[in-house]
């Protein structure tokens, strides 16, 4: 049974519909991503799931609980990490963990969590003295200290450097391995592709697709592109004659061959037969970003 069910969610702000009939269901143990450009309605959607906003339509259930009516119970089973929220400047890491763990009926061992999130050396450090990555890790630790079944992580890696971002991704996978279902809001394609089991793509408040990252890409386009610089002039007809090839174009000194199936093998075989060497050979496959463009009909602006 799904642990989070969102059905026909509608949210308006002053006559402007921000979320327009979004539905999805998250299975236990999944990392479920909500992907979309800024202002697409991702945060509003998860804030309704978190019980922080009152929906104007539709139903939401988290572990069978209606976030609007049984907020107290929801808080025990859902841990949240919010965009743009802070702790008091002079609160120390250890104090924050101790404080937040006192709020829950069955808290996790906070020292254990601090260890997992590599903050043990920072227990006596005040919040204002933490780096961006450390603040994010503390924020994850606080979201998990109540031993939640569901963790909602909103734009977790925004503002982190690439190394800290990759570390955070590893952490999220660890958290999932502890049995926590994760609802992840992101506008990073790479993050969605790397982490999520399934993705809801939201654009202008509407759900435009719901699938695994690979499924989304496959759904859009199975074409591949090969680029290379031929060592000797080559008649295009040799390539276009291949059943795998759909098009051949010249781009400067390079050839761009588009096609499907086992395109690479077919092309390299023909080249070898004609004693042409392919320099700077690159294969391009449809990315999630291409999929997004195809799904929404406009470029992805992060």
């Amino acid at each position: 049974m799904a642990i989070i069910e969102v059905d026909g969610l509608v949210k308006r702000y002053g006559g402007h519909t921000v979320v327009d009939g979004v539905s999805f269901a998250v299975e236990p143990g999944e990392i479920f991503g909500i992907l979309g450009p800024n202002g697409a309605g991702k945060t509003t959607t998860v804030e309704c799931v978190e019980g922080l906003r009152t929906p104007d339509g539709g139903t939401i259930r988290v572990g069978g609980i209606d976030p609007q009516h049984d907020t107290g119970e929801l808080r025990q089973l859902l841990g949240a990490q919010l965009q743009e929220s802070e702790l008091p400047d002079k609160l120390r890491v250890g104090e924050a963990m101790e404080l937040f763990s006192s709020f829950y009926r069955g808290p996790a061992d906070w020292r254990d969590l601090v260890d997992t999130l590599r903050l043990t050396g920072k227990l006596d450090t005040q919040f204002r003295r933490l780096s961006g990555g450390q603040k994010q890790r503390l924020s994850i630790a606080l979201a998990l200290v109540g031993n939640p079944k569901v963790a909602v992580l909103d734009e977790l890696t925004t503002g982190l450097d690439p190394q800290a971002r990759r570390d955070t991704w590893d952490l999220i996978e660890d958290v999932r391995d502890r049995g926590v279902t994760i609802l992840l809001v992101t506008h990073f394609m790479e993050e969605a592709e790397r982490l999520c089991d399934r993705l809801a793509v939201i654009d202008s408040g509407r759900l435009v697709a719901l699938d695994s990252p690979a499924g989304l890409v496959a759904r859009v386009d199975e074409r591949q592109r090969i680029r290379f610089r031929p060592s000797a002039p080559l008649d295009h007809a040799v390539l276009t004659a291949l059943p795998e090839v759909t098009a051949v174009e010249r781009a400067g000194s390079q050839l761009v061959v588009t096609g499907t199936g086992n395109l690479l093998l077919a092309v390299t075989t023909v080249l070898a037969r004609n004693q042409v060497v392919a320099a700077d050979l690159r294969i391009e496959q449809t990315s999630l970003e291409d999929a997004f463009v195809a799904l929404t009909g406009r470029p992805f602006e992060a």
Partner: protein
Amino acid sequence: MSALSRLTVTETRLFFREPMIVFFALAFPPILLVVFGAIPSFREPDQSLGGLRVIDLYVPIVVAMSLALFALNSLSQLFATYREKGVLRRMRTTPVRPAMMLGAQLLMSTILSVLTMAVVLAVGRLAFDVRLPRQLPAYLLGYVLAALAMFAIGLLVAALAPTGKSAGAIGTVLFFPIVFFAGLWIPRDSMNDVLRTISDLTPLGAGVQSLQDATAGHWPQLLHLAVMLAWTVVAGGLAARYFRWE
């Protein structure tokens, strides 16, 4: 430890990490009393004050002023800053209820301001021989009502101010008339009738008179108790009405 006591302990620790706020809330009132007591004429009995000395009148005024400092300087700013920085928003995703968050702040403010009151009374008694309250239950009643009224006003400021800085500014603007009518510059006994009537209707004017009455061994006047209750209900009600998490 329960969530409420853990919150209160944590808030108290954070309070003691702000030297300026600690100074004004805890140390300034006793220092001010010592300064007043150092003025020789303040220690002379005055016939126009019914044989009391000016310093006798200033002990309840300083006690009341310390409540105003607490409510308008630390409590309101702290809360408004928490909202501005998203601390309240963060708390909202946990099982902590708003009432508990407020409760912890009020508990801390009450404990610390009672401490200040005790220090001010002790300094008055030991350094300047000011009589301790004769009617202790009445004194505590007056004190608690004055504290509630001031904390309610402090929370109202926190609810209305958009930022921590503006809460500080509004608090300061309110602080001066409130302590003026409490008698910080002219003790109530030296005010003219118009000023004293206005003072009767302000939270700390009523508060100071109640403390003074209890010190002399009388129960506070019904008017003053009613005034403090009214401020608590109205300001507290508005604070609850306009309270925002973010």
